[in-house]
Protein backbone atom coordinates (compact mmCIF):
# COMPACT_ATOMS: atom_id res chain seq x y z
CA UNK A 1 0.00 0.00 0.00
CA UNK A 2 1.61 3.33 -1.03
CA UNK A 3 2.32 5.74 1.81
CA UNK A 4 0.52 8.63 0.09
CA UNK A 5 -2.76 6.74 -0.16
CA UNK A 6 -3.24 5.86 3.51
CA UNK A 7 -4.68 9.23 4.67
CA UNK A 8 -7.31 9.07 1.92
CA UNK A 9 -8.04 5.42 2.63
CA UNK A 10 -8.36 6.22 6.33
CA UNK A 11 -10.76 9.05 5.55
CA UNK A 12 -12.92 6.79 3.34
CA UNK A 13 -12.86 4.11 6.02
CA UNK A 14 -13.94 6.62 8.69
CA UNK A 15 -16.76 7.97 6.53
CA UNK A 16 -17.97 4.43 5.83
CA UNK A 17 -17.72 3.19 9.41
CA UNK A 18 -19.02 6.36 11.11
CA UNK A 19 -22.60 5.12 11.64
CA UNK A 20 -21.15 2.09 13.39
CA UNK A 21 -19.81 4.10 16.36
CA UNK A 22 -23.18 5.23 17.79
CA UNK A 23 -24.41 1.68 17.12
CA UNK A 24 -21.55 0.17 19.14
CA UNK A 25 -22.25 2.65 21.96
CA UNK A 26 -25.96 1.83 22.00
CA UNK A 27 -25.27 -1.91 21.91
CA UNK A 28 -22.76 -1.68 24.79
CA UNK A 29 -25.24 0.29 26.81
CA UNK A 30 -27.99 -2.25 26.11
CA UNK A 31 -25.82 -5.23 27.02
CA UNK A 32 -24.59 -3.60 30.25
CA UNK A 33 -28.12 -2.74 31.32
CA UNK A 34 -29.29 -6.30 30.71
CA UNK A 35 -31.08 -5.86 27.39
CA UNK A 36 -30.41 -7.27 23.92
CA UNK A 37 -30.50 -3.91 22.18
CA UNK A 38 -30.64 -3.04 18.52
CA UNK A 39 -27.99 -4.41 16.13
CA UNK A 40 -24.86 -2.29 15.85
CA UNK A 41 -25.67 -1.42 12.20
CA UNK A 42 -28.99 0.11 13.25
CA UNK A 43 -27.98 3.59 12.08
CA UNK A 44 -27.26 2.29 8.55
CA UNK A 45 -30.81 0.90 8.44
CA UNK A 46 -32.21 4.17 9.80
CA UNK A 47 -30.31 6.19 7.22
CA UNK A 48 -31.46 3.90 4.40
CA UNK A 49 -35.06 4.30 5.60
CA UNK A 50 -34.75 8.09 5.87
CA UNK A 51 -33.14 8.53 2.46
CA UNK A 52 -36.10 6.87 0.73
CA UNK A 53 -38.60 9.22 2.34
CA UNK A 54 -39.88 12.57 1.18
CA UNK A 55 -39.01 15.87 2.90
CA UNK A 56 -41.58 17.98 4.69
CA UNK A 57 -40.69 21.63 5.27
CA UNK A 58 -42.69 23.69 7.72
CA UNK A 59 -44.27 26.72 6.04
CA UNK A 60 -42.52 29.14 8.40
CA UNK A 61 -39.01 27.95 7.60
CA UNK A 62 -36.75 29.78 5.18
CA UNK A 63 -33.51 29.17 3.32
CA UNK A 64 -31.17 28.71 6.35
CA UNK A 65 -33.29 25.78 7.47
CA UNK A 66 -32.82 24.02 4.11
CA UNK A 67 -29.10 24.67 4.08
CA UNK A 68 -28.52 23.04 7.47
CA UNK A 69 -27.89 19.41 6.44
CA UNK A 70 -25.62 20.30 3.54
CA UNK A 71 -23.47 22.83 5.38
CA UNK A 72 -23.28 20.73 8.55
CA UNK A 73 -22.11 17.63 6.72
CA UNK A 74 -19.70 19.60 4.53
CA UNK A 75 -18.19 21.36 7.55
CA UNK A 76 -17.71 18.14 9.49
CA UNK A 77 -16.16 16.32 6.53
CA UNK A 78 -13.90 19.34 5.95
CA UNK A 79 -12.84 19.15 9.59
CA UNK A 80 -12.07 15.46 9.21
CA UNK A 81 -9.68 16.25 6.34
CA UNK A 82 -7.43 17.92 8.93
CA UNK A 83 -7.29 14.99 11.35
CA UNK A 84 -4.49 12.43 10.98
CA UNK A 85 -7.00 9.60 10.79
CA UNK A 86 -4.41 7.07 9.66
CA UNK A 87 -2.22 7.90 12.66
CA UNK A 88 0.50 9.76 10.81
CA UNK A 89 -0.69 12.42 8.38
CA UNK A 90 -3.95 14.05 7.44
CA UNK A 91 -5.19 14.74 3.94
CA UNK A 92 -4.54 18.45 4.45
CA UNK A 93 -2.15 19.86 7.01
CA UNK A 94 -0.84 23.35 7.63
CA UNK A 95 0.52 25.10 10.74
CA UNK A 96 -2.39 26.20 12.88
CA UNK A 97 -4.94 23.85 11.38
CA UNK A 98 -6.08 23.04 14.95
CA UNK A 99 -7.91 26.33 14.97
CA UNK A 100 -9.49 25.54 11.61
CA UNK A 101 -10.48 22.11 12.92
CA UNK A 102 -12.23 23.46 16.02
CA UNK A 103 -14.01 26.20 14.13
CA UNK A 104 -15.19 24.10 11.18
CA UNK A 105 -16.78 21.83 13.78
CA UNK A 106 -18.21 24.99 15.36
CA UNK A 107 -19.53 26.04 11.92
CA UNK A 108 -21.54 22.82 11.73
CA UNK A 109 -22.98 23.58 15.15
CA UNK A 110 -23.69 27.17 14.13
CA UNK A 111 -25.81 26.20 11.11
CA UNK A 112 -27.70 23.65 13.22
CA UNK A 113 -28.49 26.43 15.68
CA UNK A 114 -29.53 28.77 12.85
CA UNK A 115 -31.87 26.11 11.47
CA UNK A 116 -33.32 25.50 14.92
CA UNK A 117 -33.96 29.22 15.44
CA UNK A 118 -35.42 29.50 11.94
CA UNK A 119 -38.28 27.18 12.81
CA UNK A 120 -39.44 29.59 15.51
CA UNK A 121 -40.28 26.69 17.82
CA UNK A 122 -39.70 27.55 21.45
CA UNK A 123 -38.38 24.06 22.21
CA UNK A 124 -35.79 24.35 19.48
CA UNK A 125 -34.77 27.80 20.65
CA UNK A 126 -34.25 26.40 24.13
CA UNK A 127 -32.18 23.51 22.82
CA UNK A 128 -30.12 25.89 20.70
CA UNK A 129 -29.44 28.11 23.69
CA UNK A 130 -28.21 25.14 25.75
CA UNK A 131 -26.13 23.76 22.91
CA UNK A 132 -24.37 27.09 22.40
CA UNK A 133 -23.79 27.64 26.11
CA UNK A 134 -22.04 24.31 26.52
CA UNK A 135 -20.23 24.58 23.20
CA UNK A 136 -18.68 27.88 24.28
CA UNK A 137 -17.26 26.20 27.38
CA UNK A 138 -16.08 23.12 25.49
CA UNK A 139 -14.25 25.29 22.97
CA UNK A 140 -12.07 26.83 25.67
CA UNK A 141 -11.31 23.45 27.22
CA UNK A 142 -10.57 21.90 23.84
CA UNK A 143 -8.00 24.58 23.15
CA UNK A 144 -6.34 23.85 26.50
CA UNK A 145 -6.01 20.22 25.35
CA UNK A 146 -4.52 21.23 22.02
CA UNK A 147 -2.22 23.71 23.72
CA UNK A 148 -0.83 20.88 25.85
CA UNK A 149 -0.31 18.72 22.76
CA UNK A 150 1.30 21.58 20.94
CA UNK A 151 3.68 22.20 23.84
CA UNK A 152 4.71 18.56 24.00
CA UNK A 153 5.31 18.13 20.26
CA UNK A 154 6.33 21.71 19.29
CA UNK A 155 3.87 21.47 16.40
CA UNK A 156 0.93 23.62 15.42
CA UNK A 157 -0.87 21.23 13.08
CA UNK A 158 -3.03 18.30 14.12
CA UNK A 159 -1.03 15.79 12.11
CA UNK A 160 2.12 17.04 13.82
CA UNK A 161 0.51 16.88 17.26
CA UNK A 162 -0.82 13.35 16.91
CA UNK A 163 1.92 12.08 14.63
CA UNK A 164 5.45 10.75 14.96
CA UNK A 165 6.76 13.08 17.69
CA UNK A 166 3.95 12.22 20.08
CA UNK A 167 4.92 8.55 20.10
CA UNK A 168 8.39 9.48 21.37
CA UNK A 169 7.05 11.90 23.94
CA UNK A 170 4.81 9.20 25.44
CA UNK A 171 8.02 7.61 26.73
CA UNK A 172 8.96 10.69 28.76
CA UNK A 173 5.71 12.49 29.52
CA UNK A 174 3.21 9.65 29.94
CA UNK A 175 1.42 10.96 33.08
CA UNK A 176 0.74 14.40 31.62
CA UNK A 177 -0.34 12.97 28.27
CA UNK A 178 -2.74 10.54 29.90
CA UNK A 179 -4.30 13.50 31.75
CA UNK A 180 -4.74 15.28 28.43
CA UNK A 181 -6.27 12.17 26.84
CA UNK A 182 -8.70 11.78 29.75
CA UNK A 183 -9.64 15.46 29.45
CA UNK A 184 -10.20 15.03 25.72
CA UNK A 185 -12.51 12.07 26.34
CA UNK A 186 -14.60 14.13 28.77
CA UNK A 187 -14.81 16.91 26.18
CA UNK A 188 -15.66 14.43 23.40
CA UNK A 189 -18.74 13.35 25.34
CA UNK A 190 -19.80 16.98 25.71
CA UNK A 191 -18.93 17.96 22.13
CA UNK A 192 -20.86 15.03 20.64
CA UNK A 193 -23.88 15.51 22.92
CA UNK A 194 -23.55 12.12 24.59
CA UNK A 195 -24.35 11.15 28.16
CA UNK A 196 -23.72 12.61 30.81
CA UNK A 197 -24.19 15.97 29.05
CA UNK A 198 -27.04 15.01 26.75
CA UNK A 199 -29.00 11.81 26.30
CA UNK A 200 -29.32 10.83 22.63
CA UNK A 201 -32.20 8.45 23.37
CA UNK A 202 -34.41 10.78 25.37
CA UNK A 203 -37.97 11.31 24.14
CA UNK A 204 -38.77 14.35 26.25
CA UNK A 205 -38.26 17.61 24.38
CA UNK A 206 -37.77 19.58 27.59
CA UNK A 207 -34.60 17.72 28.52
CA UNK A 208 -33.08 17.41 25.06
CA UNK A 209 -30.17 19.48 23.86
CA UNK A 210 -28.93 18.30 20.49
CA UNK A 211 -31.96 16.17 19.57
CA UNK A 212 -34.44 18.98 20.06
CA UNK A 213 -32.68 21.16 17.51
CA UNK A 214 -33.36 18.70 14.69
CA UNK A 215 -37.01 17.94 15.51
CA UNK A 216 -38.29 19.72 12.41
CA UNK A 217 -35.98 18.02 9.94
CA UNK A 218 -37.36 15.05 8.08
CA UNK A 219 -36.47 12.47 5.48
CA UNK A 220 -33.08 12.73 3.77
CA UNK A 221 -32.36 16.01 5.59
CA UNK A 222 -32.64 14.27 8.96
CA UNK A 223 -30.60 11.37 7.59
CA UNK A 224 -27.78 13.69 6.56
CA UNK A 225 -27.77 15.40 9.97
CA UNK A 226 -27.71 12.06 11.82
CA UNK A 227 -24.88 10.91 9.58
CA UNK A 228 -23.01 14.19 10.17
CA UNK A 229 -23.18 13.77 13.95
CA UNK A 230 -21.97 10.18 13.58
CA UNK A 231 -18.99 11.45 11.55
CA UNK A 232 -18.27 14.10 14.17
CA UNK A 233 -18.20 11.42 16.87
CA UNK A 234 -16.00 9.12 14.76
CA UNK A 235 -13.50 11.82 13.84
CA UNK A 236 -13.09 12.89 17.45
CA UNK A 237 -12.89 9.23 18.47
CA UNK A 238 -10.13 8.64 15.92
CA UNK A 239 -8.28 11.74 17.13
CA UNK A 240 -8.57 10.62 20.75
CA UNK A 241 -7.38 7.16 19.75
CA UNK A 242 -4.28 8.57 18.03
CA UNK A 243 -3.46 10.79 21.00
CA UNK A 244 -3.98 8.06 23.59
CA UNK A 245 -2.09 5.52 21.51
CA UNK A 246 0.16 6.97 18.79
CA UNK A 247 0.74 4.39 16.07
CA UNK A 248 2.69 6.56 13.62
CA UNK A 249 5.57 4.13 13.45
CA UNK A 250 3.60 1.05 12.47
CA UNK A 251 3.00 -0.25 8.94
CA UNK A 252 0.14 1.42 6.99
CA UNK A 253 -2.17 -1.61 7.16
CA UNK A 254 -1.68 -1.87 10.93
CA UNK A 255 -2.42 1.83 11.30
CA UNK A 256 -5.72 1.41 9.46
CA UNK A 257 -6.52 -1.49 11.78
CA UNK A 258 -5.69 0.78 14.72
CA UNK A 259 -8.15 3.34 13.34
CA UNK A 260 -10.95 0.76 13.33
CA UNK A 261 -9.92 -0.36 16.81
CA UNK A 262 -10.03 3.25 18.06
CA UNK A 263 -13.53 3.76 16.62
CA UNK A 264 -14.86 0.58 18.21
CA UNK A 265 -13.11 1.15 21.56
CA UNK A 266 -14.34 4.72 21.92
CA UNK A 267 -17.83 3.50 21.00
CA UNK A 268 -17.61 0.91 23.76
CA UNK A 269 -16.31 3.51 26.24
CA UNK A 270 -19.16 5.90 25.39
CA UNK A 271 -21.58 3.02 25.91
CA UNK A 272 -20.03 2.17 29.28
CA UNK A 273 -20.35 5.77 30.42
CA UNK A 274 -23.96 5.88 29.25
CA UNK A 275 -24.81 2.66 31.04
CA UNK A 276 -23.07 3.55 34.29
CA UNK A 277 -24.10 7.13 34.96
CA UNK A 278 -27.24 9.19 34.65
CA UNK A 279 -27.07 12.42 32.73
CA UNK A 280 -26.20 15.42 34.79
CA UNK A 281 -28.53 18.20 35.79
CA UNK A 282 -28.17 21.05 33.30
CA UNK A 283 -26.73 23.30 35.99
CA UNK A 284 -24.01 20.70 36.66
CA UNK A 285 -22.84 20.41 33.06
CA UNK A 286 -20.54 23.47 33.21
CA UNK A 287 -18.87 21.88 36.24
CA UNK A 288 -18.38 18.67 34.25
CA UNK A 289 -16.79 20.59 31.39
CA UNK A 290 -14.66 22.54 33.86
CA UNK A 291 -13.47 19.16 35.16
CA UNK A 292 -12.29 18.29 31.66
CA UNK A 293 -10.66 21.70 31.38
CA UNK A 294 -8.95 21.26 34.76
CA UNK A 295 -7.51 17.90 33.69
CA UNK A 296 -6.10 19.36 30.48
CA UNK A 297 -4.85 22.47 32.27
CA UNK A 298 -3.07 20.26 34.79
CA UNK A 299 -1.54 18.27 31.95
CA UNK A 300 -0.45 21.52 30.31
CA UNK A 301 1.16 22.75 33.54
CA UNK A 302 3.04 19.47 33.90
CA UNK A 303 4.32 19.74 30.34
CA UNK A 304 5.34 23.39 30.69
CA UNK A 305 7.36 22.60 33.79
Amino acid at each position, binding site marked *: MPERATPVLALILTLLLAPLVPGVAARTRAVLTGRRGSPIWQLYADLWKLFRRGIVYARVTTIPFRLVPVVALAAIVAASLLVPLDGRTSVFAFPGDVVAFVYTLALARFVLVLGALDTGSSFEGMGASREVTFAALVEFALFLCFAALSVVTHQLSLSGMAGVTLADRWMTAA*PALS*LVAAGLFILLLAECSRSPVDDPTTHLELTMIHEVMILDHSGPDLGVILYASAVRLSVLAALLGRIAWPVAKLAPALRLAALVAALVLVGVLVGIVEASMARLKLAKV*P*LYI*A*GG*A*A*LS*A*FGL*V*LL*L*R
Partner: protein
Amino acid sequence: MRPLIEPILLAVALTNFAVLGTSRMTACVRMLAMQGALLGVLSIAVERPLSVHSIALGAGTVAVKALGLPWFLRWAMREAAVRREVEPVIGYMASLLLGALVVGVSFAVASRLPGMVPGQGGSAPGGLLVPIALATLLSGLLVLITRSKAITQVVGYLMLENGIYLFGLTLVGRISFLVEIGVLLDVFVAVFIMGIVVFHINREFDSISAENLVELREA
Protein backbone atom coordinates in the same frame (compact mmCIF):
# COMPACT_ATOMS: atom_id res chain seq x y z
CA MET B 1 9.20 1.77 43.90
CA ARG B 2 10.61 4.93 42.29
CA PRO B 3 8.47 4.91 39.12
CA LEU B 4 5.39 4.79 41.34
CA ILE B 5 6.03 8.24 42.80
CA GLU B 6 4.95 10.35 39.85
CA PRO B 7 1.57 8.63 39.23
CA ILE B 8 0.83 8.72 42.97
CA LEU B 9 1.54 12.44 43.15
CA LEU B 10 -0.71 13.05 40.13
CA ALA B 11 -3.45 11.01 41.79
CA VAL B 12 -3.07 13.18 44.92
CA ALA B 13 -3.53 16.28 42.77
CA LEU B 14 -6.60 14.72 41.14
CA THR B 15 -8.16 14.05 44.55
CA ASN B 16 -7.67 17.77 45.26
CA PHE B 17 -9.68 18.60 42.16
CA ALA B 18 -12.34 16.08 43.16
CA VAL B 19 -12.76 17.63 46.61
CA LEU B 20 -12.91 21.12 45.10
CA GLY B 21 -15.53 20.13 42.55
CA THR B 22 -17.99 18.04 44.51
CA SER B 23 -20.93 19.10 46.63
CA ARG B 24 -21.49 15.77 48.37
CA MET B 25 -19.75 15.49 51.71
CA THR B 26 -19.53 11.70 51.54
CA ALA B 27 -17.63 12.03 48.27
CA CYS B 28 -15.39 14.68 49.87
CA VAL B 29 -14.56 12.38 52.76
CA ARG B 30 -14.02 9.42 50.42
CA MET B 31 -11.58 11.48 48.36
CA LEU B 32 -9.81 12.57 51.54
CA ALA B 33 -9.47 8.95 52.63
CA MET B 34 -8.06 8.08 49.22
CA GLN B 35 -5.59 10.94 49.49
CA GLY B 36 -4.53 9.66 52.91
CA ALA B 37 -3.96 6.16 51.53
CA LEU B 38 -1.94 7.60 48.63
CA LEU B 39 0.23 9.55 51.08
CA GLY B 40 0.83 6.37 53.05
CA VAL B 41 1.98 4.49 49.96
CA LEU B 42 4.03 7.48 48.90
CA SER B 43 5.94 7.71 52.17
CA ILE B 44 7.02 4.11 51.64
CA ALA B 45 7.87 4.73 47.99
CA VAL B 46 10.15 7.76 48.44
CA GLU B 47 12.56 5.98 50.74
CA ARG B 48 15.03 4.20 48.49
CA PRO B 49 16.24 1.39 50.72
CA LEU B 50 13.09 0.06 52.29
CA SER B 51 13.36 0.50 56.03
CA VAL B 52 11.27 -0.38 59.07
CA HIS B 53 11.01 3.34 59.72
CA SER B 54 9.35 4.16 56.41
CA ILE B 55 7.04 1.16 56.51
CA ALA B 56 5.91 2.06 60.01
CA LEU B 57 5.38 5.67 58.94
CA GLY B 58 3.37 4.56 55.89
CA ALA B 59 1.26 2.15 57.91
CA GLY B 60 0.62 4.82 60.56
CA THR B 61 -0.36 7.32 57.88
CA VAL B 62 -2.81 4.92 56.26
CA ALA B 63 -4.27 4.00 59.65
CA VAL B 64 -4.80 7.62 60.71
CA LYS B 65 -5.44 9.45 57.45
CA ALA B 66 -7.25 6.81 55.41
CA LEU B 67 -9.15 4.92 58.09
CA GLY B 68 -9.32 6.79 61.42
CA LEU B 69 -10.10 10.36 60.40
CA PRO B 70 -12.57 9.52 57.59
CA TRP B 71 -14.38 7.16 59.93
CA PHE B 72 -14.61 9.94 62.47
CA LEU B 73 -15.85 12.46 59.88
CA ARG B 74 -18.51 9.99 58.75
CA TRP B 75 -19.57 9.63 62.36
CA ALA B 76 -19.84 13.41 62.73
CA MET B 77 -21.83 13.60 59.49
CA ARG B 78 -24.24 10.96 60.70
CA GLU B 79 -24.67 12.72 64.03
CA ALA B 80 -25.29 16.09 62.41
CA ALA B 81 -27.40 14.54 59.62
CA VAL B 82 -25.88 16.61 56.82
CA ARG B 83 -25.11 15.28 53.38
CA ARG B 84 -24.44 18.28 51.20
CA GLU B 85 -22.59 21.53 51.29
CA VAL B 86 -25.44 23.81 50.28
CA GLU B 87 -24.05 27.27 49.85
CA PRO B 88 -20.32 27.54 49.43
CA VAL B 89 -18.96 31.08 49.38
CA ILE B 90 -17.47 30.40 45.94
CA GLY B 91 -19.28 28.12 43.48
CA TYR B 92 -17.94 24.69 42.56
CA MET B 93 -17.13 25.74 39.03
CA ALA B 94 -15.14 28.73 40.28
CA SER B 95 -13.35 26.70 42.94
CA LEU B 96 -12.42 24.05 40.37
CA LEU B 97 -10.94 26.70 38.08
CA LEU B 98 -9.19 28.30 41.06
CA GLY B 99 -7.85 24.83 41.84
CA ALA B 100 -6.37 24.62 38.34
CA LEU B 101 -4.90 28.09 38.82
CA VAL B 102 -3.46 27.06 42.18
CA VAL B 103 -1.70 24.11 40.52
CA GLY B 104 -0.18 26.46 37.98
CA VAL B 105 0.96 28.88 40.67
CA SER B 106 2.44 26.06 42.75
CA PHE B 107 4.51 24.83 39.83
CA ALA B 108 5.69 28.37 39.12
CA VAL B 109 6.60 29.00 42.76
CA ALA B 110 8.18 25.60 43.39
CA SER B 111 10.70 26.08 40.60
CA ARG B 112 11.89 29.27 42.28
CA LEU B 113 12.18 28.00 45.84
CA PRO B 114 15.73 28.27 47.13
CA GLY B 115 17.30 25.08 48.43
CA MET B 116 15.02 22.78 46.49
CA VAL B 117 17.70 21.41 44.24
CA PRO B 118 16.29 18.58 42.12
CA GLY B 119 17.79 15.30 43.13
CA GLN B 120 18.08 16.28 46.74
CA GLY B 121 16.08 14.40 49.33
CA GLY B 122 12.63 13.31 48.25
CA SER B 123 12.20 16.09 45.72
CA ALA B 124 14.06 13.99 43.18
CA PRO B 125 11.19 12.71 40.97
CA GLY B 126 11.24 15.54 38.48
CA GLY B 127 10.69 17.99 41.30
CA LEU B 128 7.02 17.01 41.32
CA LEU B 129 6.82 16.50 45.06
CA VAL B 130 7.23 20.14 46.10
CA PRO B 131 4.73 21.66 43.63
CA ILE B 132 2.10 19.02 44.41
CA ALA B 133 2.67 19.60 48.12
CA LEU B 134 2.10 23.33 47.60
CA ALA B 135 -0.94 22.68 45.42
CA THR B 136 -2.47 20.37 48.04
CA LEU B 137 -1.77 22.90 50.76
CA LEU B 138 -3.35 25.76 48.81
CA SER B 139 -6.34 23.68 47.68
CA GLY B 140 -6.92 22.73 51.31
CA LEU B 141 -6.77 26.39 52.25
CA LEU B 142 -9.25 27.16 49.47
CA VAL B 143 -11.70 24.54 50.76
CA LEU B 144 -11.18 25.76 54.31
CA ILE B 145 -12.07 29.36 53.55
CA THR B 146 -14.77 28.92 50.92
CA ARG B 147 -17.03 26.27 52.43
CA SER B 148 -19.58 27.13 55.06
CA LYS B 149 -20.26 23.77 56.68
CA ALA B 150 -17.98 22.86 59.56
CA ILE B 151 -17.31 19.32 58.28
CA THR B 152 -16.16 20.47 54.85
CA GLN B 153 -13.95 22.96 56.60
CA VAL B 154 -12.39 20.11 58.56
CA VAL B 155 -11.83 18.32 55.24
CA GLY B 156 -10.07 21.46 54.02
CA TYR B 157 -7.92 21.57 57.13
CA LEU B 158 -6.94 17.95 56.63
CA MET B 159 -6.03 18.57 52.99
CA LEU B 160 -3.89 21.48 54.11
CA GLU B 161 -2.21 19.18 56.58
CA ASN B 162 -1.70 16.58 53.85
CA GLY B 163 0.12 19.25 51.90
CA ILE B 164 2.42 19.88 54.83
CA TYR B 165 2.95 16.15 55.19
CA LEU B 166 3.94 15.93 51.52
CA PHE B 167 6.35 18.78 52.06
CA GLY B 168 7.80 16.87 55.00
CA LEU B 169 8.40 13.89 52.74
CA THR B 170 11.10 15.87 50.94
CA LEU B 171 13.06 15.58 54.16
CA VAL B 172 12.28 11.95 54.88
CA GLY B 173 15.24 10.29 56.53
CA ARG B 174 16.26 13.57 58.12
CA ILE B 175 13.13 14.23 60.13
CA SER B 176 13.03 11.80 62.93
CA PHE B 177 10.33 9.23 63.09
CA LEU B 178 9.03 10.50 66.42
CA VAL B 179 8.35 13.98 65.03
CA GLU B 180 6.23 12.56 62.21
CA ILE B 181 4.27 10.37 64.59
CA GLY B 182 3.82 13.38 66.88
CA VAL B 183 2.39 15.38 63.98
CA LEU B 184 -0.01 12.57 63.11
CA LEU B 185 -1.13 12.43 66.71
CA ASP B 186 -1.59 16.22 66.85
CA VAL B 187 -3.79 16.17 63.79
CA PHE B 188 -5.80 13.30 65.13
CA VAL B 189 -6.46 15.15 68.38
CA ALA B 190 -7.27 18.38 66.52
CA VAL B 191 -9.83 16.65 64.33
CA PHE B 192 -11.24 14.91 67.36
CA ILE B 193 -11.80 18.26 69.04
CA MET B 194 -13.27 19.67 65.83
CA GLY B 195 -15.67 16.74 65.67
CA ILE B 196 -16.87 17.48 69.15
CA VAL B 197 -17.19 21.17 68.31
CA VAL B 198 -19.19 20.29 65.20
CA PHE B 199 -21.42 18.13 67.31
CA HIS B 200 -22.05 21.00 69.73
CA ILE B 201 -22.59 23.59 67.01
CA ASN B 202 -25.13 21.27 65.52
CA ARG B 203 -26.94 20.79 68.80
CA GLU B 204 -26.95 24.50 69.51
CA PHE B 205 -28.12 25.79 66.11
CA ASP B 206 -29.62 22.71 64.44
CA SER B 207 -27.18 23.19 61.58
CA ILE B 208 -23.45 23.10 61.15
CA SER B 209 -23.06 26.29 59.19
CA ALA B 210 -20.09 28.07 60.67
CA GLU B 211 -21.79 31.32 59.67
CA ASN B 212 -23.94 30.98 62.78
CA LEU B 213 -20.85 31.72 64.82
CA VAL B 214 -20.26 35.29 63.66
CA GLU B 215 -22.48 36.83 66.28
CA LEU B 216 -21.06 37.16 69.75
CA ARG B 217 -23.55 37.37 72.56
CA GLU B 218 -23.92 36.28 76.11
CA ALA B 219 -25.86 33.20 76.86
